[in-house]
Every structure is written in structure tokens, then in C-alpha cells.
């Protein structure tokens, strides 16, 4: 009996030991070694990719301006190109000028705190990252300097800042009336005019669209009232006591709603002759400007690329999608969509995360001012300061290489950069 008990104890002990070893392995943190070694290989690959991008996107450092932005903005140079540069700053400063117009009634308001509070749903933020504080303070300073310089030159009373786009409009007038002197200025102006003509064609299309809608406005209101009534009937269905009857009523309501919806869509189609002419005009200009994407001038590339993408936001110059374009029956693809198609991709969402940085870095590579004090860097600061405060202190390239892009995404950015070189490079 004792031998049996002893044998049993030994067997059970051995089994317990074996199984506890297995448990210990399972409950250890995962073995990071294999993960680490593949990470090291990947890091080396990512460094190579970063280097390739850097050699392209930072090549034009030597052509950067020798003056500080404040000096350029406040200086005596009012040539065509200098006004154009001020216009780019005015575009970035729009958000500041909206604040300034409101602040005229409340002199005590502090721009940095108000700006941040506005982005935090009206909640005061007590701990502000010093990089953000510094960046937004510089932003305010640039915009104030610009406003003063433009008003002084144009002899406009500073108290006349009643609209946030006053500075922009003054600079636009100056640009239109200032003669070009250098080859660069003449080249730039010819494309500025081209884009202005395209913008005019877009406005005519929009006007035609609005007129066609206005003619149907009574009908649209009627349809809207009908839709609301049906929606209320829909909400009440849950209280019906017979689910099958409720389902039948639901199906009938859906049919009616779809019928109204179809009528509504038809009323916005704008199929009149005036609209079709305006549409053809826009399409013609759109095709024409895209031919000018090929070239080496960074200002022209920025101008044409943004116009071709139907965007006023430089951070969307890689690819932009617009419900407005599909409403207007604009069936051609933007250059960004053409690039996406070239890769066989139809899903816009994540493609844009590579396409937009690639386009900006391509712009930098052409020689556009992408330094830490540039208008473009400032635009990234005011857009990304909340989650990536480094945007307020580093160059555009540095921001993308070291903050905004994952190492794997950098790989895709390089691919698209190379595509742009092949398709837009001279």
C-alpha cells in the first residue's frame, strides 16, 4: 500500500511540475527577441527610405530666403514676387484675422489662449506646450506685421479691418496691378492668370447650379416638408403592437421616402443648357491646367496642383475628395485620383495619408520654402499643434520624417514621391 501511495505521489508531482512549466511559459511576457530582430532590420530599411526622401526633399536649402519672414513681410520689396509671398502669408493668417476682427470689441482677449480654447470646444486649457505657445505667438506676430505692412503700403486705415479677408483682398489688388520684371515673375504670373480663369469658370458653374436649384426651390421646400412628415411616422412605428404590420408600414414608408429622395436629387441636377455650357467650360480649363503640373517651378506646381485638386488647403494638395464635385457631375479624375488609380487603389481614406505628405515633400524638393519659419510650416503648426506640437518648431520635412509619418508610411510616401518625379518632373 505504501509503495502505491509513494508511486502515486511521485507521478502526480512529476505531472504537476510539467504542467506548471507550460503555464509559466504562457504567462511570461511575449518573447520580444524575434520581434526585436525583425524590428532592427526594418529600422535599417526605414533609415534608407528616409535618406532617399531627404536627399530629394531637402536639396533646395541653398535657395531658401536669406531674410527672416518678418523682414520679408515688413521690408521695402514690393515686387510682384514679394507681393505673392505676402499673399501666401495672408492666406495662412486668415484664421488670425478672424480672431482680430472679433477681438476689436474685446481688447483684453489673448490670442493664444482664445485660439486653443476654440479648438477645445470652448474649454480653457491650462497647460500649453511651450512649442505651441512659441509657435502661436510667432503666428500672431507675423500676421500683425503683415497687416501693418499692407495697410501702410496701400494707405489703408488699420481700423478698417472689419472683415477678416481685407488684407487678402488688398494684396490681391496689388498683385493684379503690379508689373512683372523677372523671368520667374512672368512665368508665375502667366499661371496665376490661368488659375484665375479656371476659378472664374468654376464660379460660373456654381452660379448656374444655384440658379437651376432656385427655380425649383418651392418644390424643394414641399419635398422637405413631406420628408419630415414621413420621418415622424417612421419614428412612431416602434410603438405599434404588431411587428409584422409595423414592418409592412415601414416598407411602405421607405418606398415613399425613396421616391421623394429621387425627386429631390433630380431637382438639383441642373440639366439646363446654361449649366451644360458652364460644365464644358470648366472641364476644358481643368484639363488645360493639368498639363502645367510638369515643370520645376515650386510656386507654379503648388498653384496648379491645388487648383487641379479643387482645394484651397495646401495640406490636401496630394489628393482631395469632394462631395461638391460629384454633385456638379464633374466626372473627370483629379491628378491625385489619377495617381491613386495608377496604383490600382480605389479606397481614398488611407491613400491620402501618403499622397498629401508626398505632394508637400515634392514641393519642398522643388525648392519651395519649407523651413521652420516658413508659411507652410506655420500652416502645419496651426493645423497639428494639438496632437503633434513639434509642428510648431521644426521644418516641414522634419515634421513629416520624424513626427507625422510612421516609418512604414514613409515607404509609401517615397513611392508616391517617385511617381510624381516620373510624371511631373521635367
Amino acid at each position, binding site marked *: 500500500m505504501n509503495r*502505491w501511495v509513494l*508511486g*502515486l505521489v511521485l*507521478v*502526480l508531482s512529476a*505531472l*504537476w511540475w510539467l*504542467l506548471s512549466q*507550460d*503555464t509559466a511559459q*504562457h*504567462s*511570461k*511576457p*511575449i518573447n520580444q527577441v524575434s520581434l526585436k530582430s525583425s524590428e532592427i532590420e526594418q529600422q535599417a530599411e526605414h533609415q534608407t527610405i528616409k535618406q532617399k526622401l531627404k536627399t530629394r526633399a531637402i536639396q533646395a536649402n541653398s535657395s531658401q530666403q536669406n531674410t527672416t519672414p518678418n523682414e520679408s513681410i515688413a521690408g521695402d520689396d514690393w515686387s510682384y514676387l514679394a507681393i505673392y509671398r505676402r499673399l501666401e502669408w495672408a492666406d495662412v493668417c486668415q484664421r488670425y484675422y478672424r480672431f482680430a476682427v472679433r477681438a476689436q470689441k474685446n481688447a483684453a482677449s489673448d490670442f493664444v489662449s482664445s485660439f486653443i480654447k476654440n479648438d477645445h470646444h470652448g474649454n480653457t486649457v491650462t497647460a500649453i506646450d511651450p512649442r505651441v505657445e512659441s509657435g502661436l505667438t510667432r503666428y500672431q506676430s507675423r500676421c500683425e506685421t503683415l497687416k501693418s505692412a499692407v495697410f501702410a503700403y496701400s494707405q489703408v486705415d488699420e481700423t478698417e479691418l472689419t472683415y477678416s479677408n481685407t488684407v487678402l483682398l488688398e494684396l490681391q489688388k496689388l498683385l493684379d496691378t503690379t508689373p512683372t520684371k523677372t523671368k520667374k515673375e512672368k512665368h508665375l504670373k502667366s499661371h496665376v492668370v490661368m488659375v484665375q480663369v479656371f476659378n472664374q469658370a468654376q464660379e460660373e458653374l456654381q452660379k448656374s447650379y444655384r440658379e437651376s436649384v432656385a427655380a425649383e426651390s418651392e418644390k424643394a421646400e414641399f419635398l422637405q416638408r413631406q420628408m419630415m412628415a414621413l420621418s415622424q411616422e*417612421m*419614428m*412612431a*412605428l*416602434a*410603438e*405599434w*403592437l404588431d*411587428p*409584422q404590420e*409595423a*414592418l409592412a408600414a*415601414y*416598407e411602405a414608408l*421607405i418606398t415613399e*421616402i*425613396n421616391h421623394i*429622395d429621387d425627386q429631390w*436629387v433630380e431637382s438639383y441636377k441642373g440639366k439646363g443648357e446654361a449649366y451644360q455650357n458652364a460644365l464644358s467650360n470648366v472641364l476644358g480649363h481643368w484639363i488645360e491646367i493639368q498639363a502645367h503640373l510638369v515643370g520645376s517651378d515650386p510656386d507654379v506646381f503648388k498653384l496648379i496642383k491645388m487648383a487641379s485638386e479643387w482645394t484651397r488647403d495646401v495640406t490636401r494638395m496630394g489628393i482631395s475628395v469632394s462631395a461638391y464635385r*460629384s454633385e456638379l457631375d464633374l466626372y473627370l479624375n483629379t491628378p491625385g485620383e489619377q495617381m491613386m488609380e495608377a*496604383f*490600382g*487603389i*480605389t*479606397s*481614398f*481614406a*488611407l*491613400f491620402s*495619408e*501618403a499622397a498629401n505628405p508626398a505632394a508637400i515633400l515634392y514641393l519642398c524638393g522643388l525648392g519651395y520654402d519649407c523651413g521652420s519659419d516658413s508659411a507652410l510650416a506655420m500652416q502645419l503648426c496651426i493645423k497639428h499643434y494639438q*496632437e*503633434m506640437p513639434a509642428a510648431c518648431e521644426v521644418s516641414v520635412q522634419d515634421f513629416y520624417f520624424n*513626427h*507625422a*509619418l*510612421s*516609418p*512604414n*508610411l*514613409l*515607404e*509609401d*510616401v517615397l*513611392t508616391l514621391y517617385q511617381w510624381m518625379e516620373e510624371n511631373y518632373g521635367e
Partner: protein
Amino acid sequence: MANKVLVVLVVIALLLWVVIQQRDQNLHMVSANDNTDKGSVDTSSKTAEQIKKPSEQKIQNKSDEPILSPDKEHRLGFLKQELATTVFSDDLFVEASVHSQLMMYCEIFKAGFIRTELKGKIKNKTWEDAYKKHCDAQRTLRPHLLVSMVSSELLDWLPSTSFMGQKFKTLLSLNGDQGEELAIEMIRLAVRNKEAHWLLLVGQSQGMLNAFNYQEWLGTNNPQYNRQIIQLAQQQLICEWDPGNLCGPYSSLMAQNCWQTPSDCGIPYSEWFEKNHMPGIKKDVALVVNRLRAYARGGDIE
């Protein structure tokens, strides 16, 4: 002698069973309030409806259940009939929540701005017709759930009978940052327990960016990018853990992808993913999927 041998063998077998059960419990993060049966089942041999569902721990105290008006009791009766064959959870509230999510895409394809947007754009007519038939069948099977969902008041009064279900109810009632901590807890539980339906329900909640250390994994603090990568990674895991119900040809996931890319409607998820993303982005998704899988296996991941 033979009796002694038999007794010894029985005792060994019993003790082995105890040890194995103990080990399996140690592999899962068990909260005080949740003891989900993982039930990772080989789905290849079962139909979608036969997949064993995890059983969430029920509330012990029946007096915690809300008292309903006669009208709502009557409607609860309808729902109980419609959801009698539960697929995802024994908790009616959870079951209804998941089915509501799945049916939602059916309805927005049938009426609304997505219907208008997609009109004439879906190339795969076979899929489109089959999806409509699938949606019609769901409506006929669960009419009361459908009309209740449309009136948006279903989840307000439907009682929950499990601890996870109650957590979810609480989460739905919280706004903005208030629910972040709870959302993070639920997302991590969903991953740890490989529960696809919970990942579907809570994966995109307010806590999603901070549920794990995604910034460190991906090497960027770009929330717009990270959110999309996490969403794709979650979709992959949902397809892995419940391919039949939540990743089938007529699932809400497929409908969502169809809306995004109408020219690709009907193609299997994995094919859609491979076709529509750049290589670097795919690597980031794989990176997140691998780490979440490691967490699901019991790894100590932050």
C-alpha cells in the same frame, strides 16, 4: 489489485483535469465582473448560426433589473421571440445591439444618402441583389428590432442581464472623455477574450486611440492615421474570430467597404484589403494585428 490500479488512474485523471482548468484560467485576463467563455471554435465545420457564443457572466441579483411598463414588457416579448436563437450573447441587450449594428447598413443602403450616393455605382450586381435579399430576410426575421432601431430608442429601455452588457450600457450613456477609461477596459477585454462582436461594438469608442500604446508601435502620434490603421486591424481580427457572422459576404463590414469602394463591392475582405492599400500601410496594419494577437494569447502588451 486491479481495483487499486483503477482508483489510482481515476485520481490521476481528476487531478490532471483540475490542473488543466487552472492553467486555462490563468491565460485569460479575468476581471472581477467578467468570466467569458472564449469558445474559440473551428468555424470551418460549422455554419455561422451554429458557432458557439461566449456566455457573459449574468447579473446575480435579479432585483437590479429595471421595472418596465406594460407596453414595454409587451414589446420585450416581441424582441425575445425574434432573438430567441441567440448568436452572439445570451444577454438580450447585447444580442440586440449587435444585430442592430448589422442591420443598420441594410437600412442605409435601402434608404438615405448612401443609397443616393451609390445609385448606379455598384458594379457587382450579383452581390448587390444577394445583399438586398439578405437584408430583406433579416427584416422579416426581426421586424420589431428593425422598427425599434429606426426610432433610436431601443437601447434606452432594454434591460441588460450581464456585467459586460451593463458596462456597455453605461458606456453608451457617457459623453466625450467621460467614457474613455471604460471604453479602454472594454476594448482590451474584447481583444483578450477574442470576442469579435465586442470588438465590433466597442472598438471605435472614445478610448480607441489609447487602448494600447499604438503611438509607440506605429512610431507616430498622428491620430488621423493611427485611427484608420487601428480600425483596419480590428476588422482583420473580427474576420479572424468570427468570419461567418461578422465578415461574411453580406456582413456590415462588407457593406461598409462597398460604400467606400463601390467598384469593389462583393469581393472578400482580405482581397479588398490587399488591393486597396499601399505596402507600407499594410505593414502598419500587420504590425498592430500581430501585437493584438499576442495580447489575445495572453501576452503582456501595453
